[in-house]
């Protein structure tokens, strides 16, 4: 494995994270060349190992979950019982040689384990310590529990999503787990690594997932604090475009987004439609006229889009310089989107237990600061020998003893 050209080569991470937000953050480091050692335990298996998707016939295999594997490529995996004194000692031995410690346990858990920032700093004074609790370590609601799907509600996103006359908009996935939390955390860790290189000083990064997520809708919060207005959800309406929204296309539940932001684009849209007579109707001649006659306009436009596949709607409109994009589904994203193929975003691999899997890349490219997907996500305890023997120098006898005692388990 040649990871020499990667930007985080030489950086070592002790990864105590689990579920979604934490592992995606350490995945960024792993794909960028850092050695990331994930500490797991048979006693408390990462919840993601127990939920799908699985390839057919693999359900229930803790090493086969697409959800787990997709978030943990390029990491080393060991099993260690953190609650045993010897397990704690071994963890500390790994921490002494590391640069970053990351966790996303609930507030107070790391303190109980004896691995609070203060504890860790004592044995590794320049550590970069990343904590990703839901509510933060302090505050009256620090004990509140939550999952990503609900943190978006807490942070104001759901209230602002969806149609005005409908309940708050909901997501088929845990938005904050895959956005604000792992990636804000990554930004902070990288800045802390830069700072440490310059000054030798470590850092505590205390990310409260509530705060990190509400930063994604900061302007809406400011609208209230500055003007006293509580912004409401408004469907697919925006101030800067008309027509605007997802238009139904040929096929089942297929849509294309169309956004006309200026008169030039309106003219382009009319050309794309073959300049039908209704386009010249003064009812649609200006932005405000179109807004007033929105319903008729949307109906006319939908009549045109309904007859065409979404891909064709996008191509016809783009050819005339009109912003348009297919409401992509995952079949298209994985198999048909030419841009994603061009970027070589997915790296296909064969996981020894999970079968074929296409690992996601990062959103950036560069001739230099590369990321790469080279290793499958670890099976539970896959790197025990390597980490305990080669890195920590335990003998086979010592390892066997620790296994018997339930420490390496």
């Amino acid at each position, binding site marked *: 494995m040649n990871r020499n050209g990667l930007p985080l080569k030489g950086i070592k991470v002790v990864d105590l994270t689990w579920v979604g937000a934490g592992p995606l953050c350490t995945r960024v480091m792993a794909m960028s060349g850092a050695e990331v050692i994930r500490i797991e335990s048979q006693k408390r298996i990462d919840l993601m190992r127990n*939920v*799908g*998707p699985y390839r057919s016939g693999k359900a229930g295999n803790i090493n086969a979950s*697409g959800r787990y594997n997709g*978030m943990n490529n390029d990491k080393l995996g060991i099993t260690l019982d953190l609650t045993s004194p010897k397990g704690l000692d071994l963890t500390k031995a790994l921490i002494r040689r590391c640069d970053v410690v990351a966790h996303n346990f609930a507030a107070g858990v790391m303190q109980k384990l004896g691995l609070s920032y203060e504890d860790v700093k004592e044995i590794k004074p320049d550590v970069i310590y990343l904590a990703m609790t839901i509510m*933060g370590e302090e*505050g009256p609601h620090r*004990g*509140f*529990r939550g999952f990503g799907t609900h943190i978006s509600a807490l942070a*104001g996103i*759901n*209230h602002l999503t*969806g149609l005005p006359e409908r*309940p708050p*908009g*909901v997501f*088929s*996935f845990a*938005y904050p787990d895959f*956005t604000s939390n792992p*990636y*804000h*955390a990554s*930004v902070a860790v990288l*800045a802390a*690594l*830069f700072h440490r*290189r310059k000054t030798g000083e470590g*850092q505590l990064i205390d*990310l*409260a997932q509530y*705060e990190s997520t509400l*930063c994604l*809708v900061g302007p*809406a919060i*400011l*609208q*209230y604090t500055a003007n006293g207005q*509580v912004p409401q959800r408004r*469907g*697919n309406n925006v101030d800067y475009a008309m027509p*605007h929204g*997802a238009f139904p296309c040929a096929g089942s*539940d297929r*849509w*294309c987004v169309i956004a006309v932001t200026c008169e030039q684009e309106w003219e382009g849209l009319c050309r794309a439609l073959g300049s039908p007579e209704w386009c010249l109707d003064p009812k649609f001649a200006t932005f405000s006229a179109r807004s007033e006659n929105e319903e008729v306009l949307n109906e006319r436009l939908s009549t045109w889009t309904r007859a065409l596949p979404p891909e064709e709607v996008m191509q016809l409109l783009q050819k005339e310089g009109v*912003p348009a*994009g297919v409401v992509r589904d*995952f079949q298209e994203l*994985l198999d048909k*989107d*030419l*841009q994603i193929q061009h*970027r070589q975003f997915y790296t296909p691999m064969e996981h020894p237990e999970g079968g074929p899997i296409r690992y996601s890349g990062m*959103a*950036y490219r*560069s001739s*230099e*600061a590369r990321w790469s997907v080279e290793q499958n996500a670890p099976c539970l305890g896959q790197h025990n020998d390597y980490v305990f023997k080669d890195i920590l120098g335990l003998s086979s006898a010592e390892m066997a003893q620790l296994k018997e005692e339930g420490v390496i388990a």
Partner: protein
Amino acid sequence: MLLEGVVVLDLSDEAGAYCTKLLALLGAEVVKVEPLEGDPTRRQGPFIDASPRPEGSVTFFYHNMGKRSITLNLATQDGKDLFLRLAKQADIIVESFAPGTLDRIGLGSAKLLEVNPRLILASITAFGQDGPYAHHKTTEAVILAMGGIMNMVGFPDDPPNCMPCNQPAMLAGMHGAIGALMALLQKEETGRGQHVDISAQLATLLGTGYISHWYEMTGEVVTRTGGKVPGGGFGGGFFGVIPGGEPSLFECKDGWVMCPPMGGERGWELVVGWMAREAAADDLTSESYRKPEVRREKTEHIFQVWRAFLKTKLKREIVEQMQRIKVPCLPVNNAQDIAEDPHLESRGFFADVEHRASGRKIKSPGSPFRLFPDACKIEGPPQLGEHNVAVYHDRLGIPLDEMSRLRELGVI
């Protein structure tokens, strides 16, 4: 501060603003290089005090906290020369022009890296610098659609839904900051700069997490499920019967709460106990409901009673009660709930930030993370061209009379 001494030139509009906001929060000196009429975000409503002026855009305020601003007309030769002098002293340049724009005006990546071989140029665009869609026209909704998120927002019978506050720009901003910082770390090793090419479509796609694996492994195309997460969640199921992953939105007296399907057997006892204390448990206290199979059979009735009860309760009451019994129930907050949340208040999350044009202090969201021993830099946004003298005169050493000449020529 973590990025103290790092100089960032920000040529971007809203597409790159969150990237440089994060760098500014971490202590970098971010200089916005604005056209003479200002960043278009300055003209984007809503406005502070509802008065439309270039210093008053709420979105601009949020995105540009802690930055400096200079004006520069890049269409002029003098403007280009000045920009190259600035680029020589910069560590990072962030831009969000359509691909090829900088090349066309003679300020492409090759030129910039020639002038400053240690420079990091971060380009944030909808689809990246090249490829079949690179020149597509886009808006936030178009990227949200092409990045796979939009198809999974909303209820099954509704069209795909947009999201608030330009999420693709926020996501591309975070990934842009990651890419730029990776390059900065690498530069410390190699001494070489680089051009980092960020795709907002891919930043958006990454926001869908494991859903791609759902399709490739099961063949099922996940769309709008009304809040159901494919494959379900975890835990014993709400009331011990409703399987994980079911929609979990409940209406209450003053809005909505999200109550995930957890709690198991013990949850049942505690929830019914709560309803009984308020004389709202109907027949649910009856012994027969202790059997999971009875509850499974009468799920509809149970939910009827439960929903009717919640409608009499405030969000706050429900959340506190459910959290007490360890069910991770959270409120559907609006902006006011968040701005007045005592938890955030006690953590000191908000900061009173000066809005220079009105002299008001505005309570503003702080940083997405807290640092120790360092701190984040939380300051107000710049007025248009506020730092012209500080940057052109103090930094580049341009005499003041030369600056007046440039001003007259429409360069700054």
